[in-house]
């Protein structure tokens, strides 16, 4: 899982590299457009994170020249977050566009989505299994250690969202957008409350906890015990 980051701001490059490495990616980082384009053409990456403002040649030009030969998924980063820039990026062949300032959680989620899309991971699945948790997506029934867990509609959407993104941190805003169809930043702690309720039904009766809070970032559904052992 190799990813190329083209970003001239050293601090950004450093923490993005570290974050993605910790999420299991192998990272090549370069800080100008010419090297970036060269690397992108020479090697096969799962995805490329490309800053718009770069020394040498800018991100749009890198993208344009890359697209003539390769279809590697590209996520563009830009401090210019206005719509025209976004449209320009997408028209030139970017697969996603993230305006600065962005949250790390969101960046990682989007990269994972890009990689997944590339591997055509959208095949229909009817069942999700995480540890002893079993979610039947067709009958919308949830079991843990063969015990049926009764969930409300919202709790079910929340759980299936987290389960589909097993091991990925989902921010409150992303969850609100997916489950409640709300995309505005708010003090609303509906996500918190819903997670709390879900946890009470899902985790409290069992010794292995699956639903974890990553403070300041979001929530993740995964089995943690194994990794630590």
């Amino acid at each position, binding site marked *: 899982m190799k990813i190329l980051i083209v970003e001239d701001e050293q601090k950004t490059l450093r923490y993005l590299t570290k974050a993605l490495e910790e999420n299991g990616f192998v990272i090549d980082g370069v800080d100008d457009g010419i090297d970036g384009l060269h690397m992108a053409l020479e090697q096969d990456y799962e995805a490329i994170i490309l800053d718009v403002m770069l020394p040498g040649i800018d991100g749009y030009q890198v993208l344009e020249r890359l697209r003539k030969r390769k279809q590697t998924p590209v996520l563009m980063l830009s401090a210019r*977050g*206005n*719509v*025209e820039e976004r449209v320009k990026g997408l028209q030139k062949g970017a697969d996603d566009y993230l305006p600065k*300032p962005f949250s790390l959680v969101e960046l990682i989620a989007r990269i994972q989505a890009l990689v997944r899309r590339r591997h055509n991971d959208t095949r229909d699945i009817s069942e999700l299994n995480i540890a002893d948790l079993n979610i039947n997506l067709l009958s919308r029934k949830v079991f843990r250690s063969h015990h049926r867990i009764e969930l409300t509609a*919202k709790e079910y959407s929340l759980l299936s969202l987290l389960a589909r993104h097993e091991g990925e941190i989902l921010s409150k805003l992303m969850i*609100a957008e997916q489950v*409640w*169809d*709300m*995309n*505005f*930043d*708010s*003090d*609303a*702690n*509906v996500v*918190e*409350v819903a997670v709390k309720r879900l946890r009470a039904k899902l985790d409290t009766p069992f010794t292995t906890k699956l639903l974890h809070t990553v*403070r*300041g*970032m979001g929530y993740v559904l995964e089995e943690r015990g194994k990794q630590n052992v």
Partner: protein
Amino acid sequence: MFKWWKSNQYSISARQAVIFATAAILIVSMYALTLRYTLHDAIRTQMHQELTFREKLVLPTIQDYADEGRWDALKDELERISAIEGHRVQYWVKPTIQTFSEAPDLPNNVVWENLPIGYSKVSVSEEICSLYLLNTELTLSSGNTRLALLVAIDSTPYMGTFDSFNQKMFFLTLFGACLVALLGYVISRAGMKPVNALSIQSGKIEPGVNGQRLDTKVLPLELQPLGASFNGVLERQEVAWQQLESFNANVAHELKTPLTNLIGQTQLAISKRRSREELEELLYSNLEELDRLTRIVNDMLFLSRSQSGQTPLLKEPVDLAVEANKIIEYLEPNFHEKALRVSCTGSGKAQVDRGLFHRALGNLLENAIQYAEPDSTILIHIEVNAGQASISVTNTGETIDDTVKASLFDRFFRADPSRNGSSARHGLGLSIVKAIATLHGGNAFVSTSKQQNTFGFSINC
């Protein structure tokens, strides 16, 4: 010429000169034409009188000769009389029944038979002016012999006078018009002088200095309204300028609080050896502050983009009540926390950007929750009226003072300045509601009654 006329860059003086000249030409031409007609009329009357006089003069002679049947002698005699006046007046006679042995020697163009009885006028040729003619029939006293008499007067001397009059009139008119145009230009320039004075005065106004106004007292009466409205513009600009300045100050202030926290707690953390937990705690706290900064920056960008029209709307037909219920569900824990009840009445459909609608109504509800009395009811009302949908949120709480009502939708305005805690929303919520309403062709509004505050916005369906 027309281009120049229609463009806005014409000189007022030049334009006035042209208008004056046109008016002068019109008036003088009218006079000249009237005079010309009167003169012409006078000449004709004069000619007719002369003709009658000549006729009377020669009548006895004709009687005498005709009685005696001396036709040739009569012809000679008439020729003689004509010669006395240099052939200016000519006479011809013929009997009405039998003709003379030879036809009378009439000028070209004159056909006796066609002439009416009485006065007439015939143009003989190009050079010679018109002949005035008097055609009469006489019955001789002696018998039944009837004669026709034709008297003609050449009008050349009169017409000469008339032509020279016309010529003079024409040049006088032209000269007069030019003079009026010139004078008009000079007068207009003189009249425009106060405008120059006004422009010099306004040229002295410097940017950024408050309280500068034009001195309207020294202006002429006509320019005083202009001066006053110019001063009005200055005043409004000044208010806008001050708003902008206080807005900048507000932004800086709003950013200062999280920045102070960030710097302070980070410095504190690294001033001593800290445990891992303490450092983690610091990072979480920093993250919260940074989130807050991001939110302020994003909201500010949203406002600035919506104002410059850079926010594209993804409009779709939306059932407003359905969306309102989604938001109520989304904010449910917040209502629960203060033991608030929600009631949503009315319904309606409109073309809106769903995301922005959520944001606007969400902001209003958060605002209502913040200021509502615990254990009260928040009312949401949706109404569609004459192409405008309006959504209002009413909460029970301390009545908003009338004096602050106008500022409620201003950026960073807070009714209660002390509510500035780290967790409280920054004061952009309501101005975002207003911006979203404006993007949808509507407006934001607020109304209060006893213990009831209603905030809302309208959108064009």
